[in-house]
């Protein structure tokens, strides 16, 4: 993953994001939470890159680094060919217009006292994208685009259902016509029967507007459905990254294999004959990750070198990247 290619909207290289742990009266720096620990990947124009992994593995932190809501500890992040890793807020502002974000919780991510219309218009105001006259028209357009009735602009969030609130969140993310949208668990808080509505909406919007997505979720079935390529994270690192199809048909990292096998399929017959890999133990703390490969203490294949050497994420052919010494 060397030079920034023209069709890469996002290019992340050796990104680290450590959160300091400070203790005692003097708030001495006693260690770091290594939320993201040296990851590299790119997102192509108009593709969806899925990011999966279990709670605390660093998905949200990765997304927030790309949005530059965090200043990375080290490494570089390029957006449309521009290195934004150390850019100041003022220089960032015009670029930020091109990035939208949708968050997990449609309940807490919207201000309960603001009307839906004003929530959506906020980003337009911040970036001076519309005159007062144009504003109503644009809000109305955005409402229609996400499948909401424009007559509901004056309602406040609690007057909407969960699915509708998520639509408001999507409309807000799209208000400034971004090219990249970071979707951080956009459907996890929704009911099963509503989830498909939002997945389809996101897919249609991508088609229609030519959007690029980073789609973060812990549900691999959902991620695979919506993504062109998928990166699997474990304890701050990417273990495997390849096309959606390849990840399912030919998972190579032992962690990916365990993750796939842990997901129960809505198919009793398939379940009866399915081989299950049940992982031992628990995910270690990101404040004190194991040496070498982060997964080695739970890995069936681990040998003595796995706890020494950090396996690089290498392309084993056809853009299938794996970080494992045993593959």
């Amino acid at each position, binding site marked *: 993953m060397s030079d920034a290619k023209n069709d890469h909207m996002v290019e992340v290289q050796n990104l680290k994001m450590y959160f300091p742990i400070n203790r005692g009266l003097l708030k001495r720096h006693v260690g770091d939470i290594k939320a993201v620990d040296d990851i590299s990947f790119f997102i192509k124009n108009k593709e969806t890159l899925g990011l999966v992994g279990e709670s605390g593995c660093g998905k949200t932190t990765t997304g927030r680094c790309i949005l530059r809501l965090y200043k990375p500890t080290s490494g570089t992040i390029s957006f449309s060919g521009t290195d934004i890793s150390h850019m100041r807020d003022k220089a960032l502002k015009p670029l930020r217009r091109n990035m939208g974000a949708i968050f997990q919780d449609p309940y807490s991510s919207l201000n309960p006292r603001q009307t839906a219309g004003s929530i959506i218009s906020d980003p337009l105001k911040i970036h001076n994208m519309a005159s007062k006259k144009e504003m109503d028209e644009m809000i109305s357009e955005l409402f229609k685009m996400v499948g909401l009735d424009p007559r509901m602009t004056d309602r406040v969030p609690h007057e909407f259902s969960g699915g509708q609130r998520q639509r408001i969140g999507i409309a807000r993310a799209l208000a400034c016509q971004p090219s990249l949208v970071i979707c951080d668990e956009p459907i996890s808080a929704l009911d099963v*029967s509503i989830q*498909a509505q939002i997945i389809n909406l996101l897919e249609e919007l991508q088609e229609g507007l030519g959007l690029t997505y980073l789609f973060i979720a812990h549900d691999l079935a959902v991620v695979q*459905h919506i993504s062109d390529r998928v990166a699997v994270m474990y304890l701050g690192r990417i273990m495997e990254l390849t096309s959606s199809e390849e990840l399912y048909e030919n998972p190579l990292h032992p962690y990916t294999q365990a*993750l796939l096998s*842990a997901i129960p399929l809505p198919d009793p017959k398939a379940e009866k004959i399915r081989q299950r890999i049940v*992982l031992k133990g628990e995910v270690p703390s990101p404040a004190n990750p194991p040496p070498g490969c982060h997964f080695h203490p739970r890995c069936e294949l681990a040998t003595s070198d796995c706890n020494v050497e950090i396996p690089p994420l290498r392309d084993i052919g056809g853009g299938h990247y794996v970080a494992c010494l045993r593959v």
Partner: protein
Amino acid sequence: MAAILEIDNLTTNFYTEYGTVKAVDGVSYYVDEGEIIGLVGESGCGKSVSVLSAMQLIQTPGKIDSGRVIFDGEDILQYDSKGEKMRSIRGGKIAMIFQEPMTSLNPVLSICRQLTEALEIHLDMDIQSARERAIELLSMVGVPEAAVRIDDFPHQFSGGMRQRVMIAMALSCNPALIIADEPTTAVDVTTQAQLLELMNDLVTRLNTSLIIVTHNLGVVARYAQRIYVMYAGRIIESGPSEEIFENPRHPYTIGLMRSIPRLGEKRGGRKLIPIDGMPPDLIFMPPTCAFLPRCTYKTKQCQEEPWPALRQVGEKHRTACFVDIGEKE
């Protein structure tokens, strides 16, 4: 095979200031000895209220308005909810595991104390043997160094470990039945797999019956022998797992299956078919089928007649729908 627990025509309402919430509306289900059944449905459809009602754990403004809950040949709804008999069932013969282990474990009591309490109450054990049994239970559910960790407090355990403690507590009094209400919703998928495998192994080995309450269709497909699908306070379809998944007959069940992405599907392969609209408000329930506004199979009859009762569509397979949706249409 004999049913270990049978819920018969249970109705539970919440009398709130906004109106009556018909949370559970004439629900019947049973679980056989050694059987695992799944109760599925989306949020708010009445799954938890139905099992809490069976255990007489409903508080005001909720009220169990009718029905019977037969356990060991007796209607336990007739027992005084705080009486001796009900207490020996709750946590003793019937154990419950809840979604959020932190709220069901007492934060100021050690793990040991929480485990031994039930043993002392229900099994009349003395302190020493209760402690030994507690350590045994803890290692049985896979907590490493159980003899040391037994004196820890809940906050010293991870989410998955706490859930293991909950399983140990549930098993402690050799229950005939365990009711697990969304036991793994708050944990990660690999932890979920660890816990469900553990629970499955243990109940199979001990011949304990299990009711799994969940909204995850995959979980019931993997573990349940029979399934009950709930919608808006009622059971709308029931039958053996394979039958339900291969040949769903209620429009809601069919809709659910079509709307969930499946592992291994190609990008741009199958388009998900969402169920339009949303579940009804349980205060303002129409007299007709509650799924009608979202249904793509509806007929004139559906609009004119009250919500249909469950009817037989196959051996042990029942659906609450007027429309004959052919096999594998």
